[in-house]
């Protein structure tokens, strides 16, 4: 098991696609994107039930063991979240390398 940072980001669905491109550029080792997630927060209820996904958020999950890359990712995520709302959590995790 290897120690790493686990980054979870909930963001507006269209911005998640932008973020996915950004992550590749920043050299993130990989990511998982869960579309159509819902919940509630500053911007009220997000039900993810409309045709065009107007109230859908996406969840992006990243495991990264390089602190520089983690910092780069967080630096890129902050301006996105400050425009659109959302949440970004960073925690210590153990990575089962296989």
């Amino acid at each position, binding site marked *: 098991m290897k120690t790493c940072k686990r980054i979870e980001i909930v963001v507006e669905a*269209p*911005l998640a696609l932008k973020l996915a491109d950004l992550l590749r550029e920043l050299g993130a080792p990989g990511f998982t994107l869960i579309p*159509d997630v819902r919940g509630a927060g500053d*911007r*009220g*209820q997000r*039900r993810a039930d409309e*045709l*065009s996904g107007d109230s859908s958020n996406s969840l992006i999950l990243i495991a990264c063991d390089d602190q520089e890359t983690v910092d780069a990712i967080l630096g890129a995520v902050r301006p996105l979240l400050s425009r659109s709302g959302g949440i970004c959590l960073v925690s210590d995790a153990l990575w089962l390398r296989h």
Partner: protein
Amino acid sequence: MSVFLSNLSSPPLLFFFLGVVAVAVRSDLEIPAQVAKALSLYLLFAIGFKGGVALAESNIDLGVMLALLAAIALSALIPVYTFFLLRKRLSIADAAATAATYGSVSAVTFVTAAGYLDMQGVDWSGYLVAAMALMESPAIIVGILLYKRYTRKDAASDTGFSWKQLLNESLFNGSVLLIMGSMLIGWISGPAGMDQVAPLVKGLFLGLLCLFLLDMGIVAARRFKDFSQSVAGQVSGRPFRLMLIVGLGLPLFNAMIGLLVAAALGLGEGNALLFMVLVASGSYIAVPAAMRLALPEANPGTYLTMSLAITFPFNLLIGIPAYHAMIRWLL
């Protein structure tokens, strides 16, 4: 009065109510999101195809061109006065997104109005479908321009917003492309093409509209519930009375402008109604998709709630028959 009753007793409207009832009694009834999406694609395809065939059967004359130009001009003009009406009362981003929402059109309201006319046996012309598709992009672009012009400069120097992406989104948004494409295909294939696909495009249209409106009833009622719960104080920070007044007042005001323009253009009964519905409705498909990309500062809880939970049901239940009664009375 009879137009209201016949509207309220039509199957699509009754299914819309069923959706509302399902939410009110906390039923687990729902149309899966992917099925609802497929239904909406079907409706856009069918209305586009019908419009294209109707275009092929008619002449594109000066009157048609003028009506299309008027539609484009209104979709650029409505956001301007909406924005100035709201900029002191909402954030600049919310005002701009709301302006774009109301400049643009609700395809579902249009399709329902076309179904209403079919049930009433009133003719309408295919070029109105083209007007609907043309009214999406100008509103989005004007909304963004207003935001760029009136927001603080430092806030506008943002992260990776590009006009190319926005134009692409507003011109080739899936629903716009499908309507335009289906219309073009209907226009090319003409009445002979219609004979081949009529069972799907005509025969199933009202039935599938019922199912679709059932879903819209559920979604709109949920939105309204969220909205009224926040009125009760569970979520603060949104100007509720303003949203209610704008959500009801703006479509009425815009409909009156639509009526005047329709009268000036000399549109017939069915076309005038569709024209009014286009001008009076607010988008909740194309505009929110573009706004979330280009203007994420704007809160969908404001502009989407107004168009989906207030304006859409209003137009569906009262607007369409009321506009129809006005046209019969005046034109």
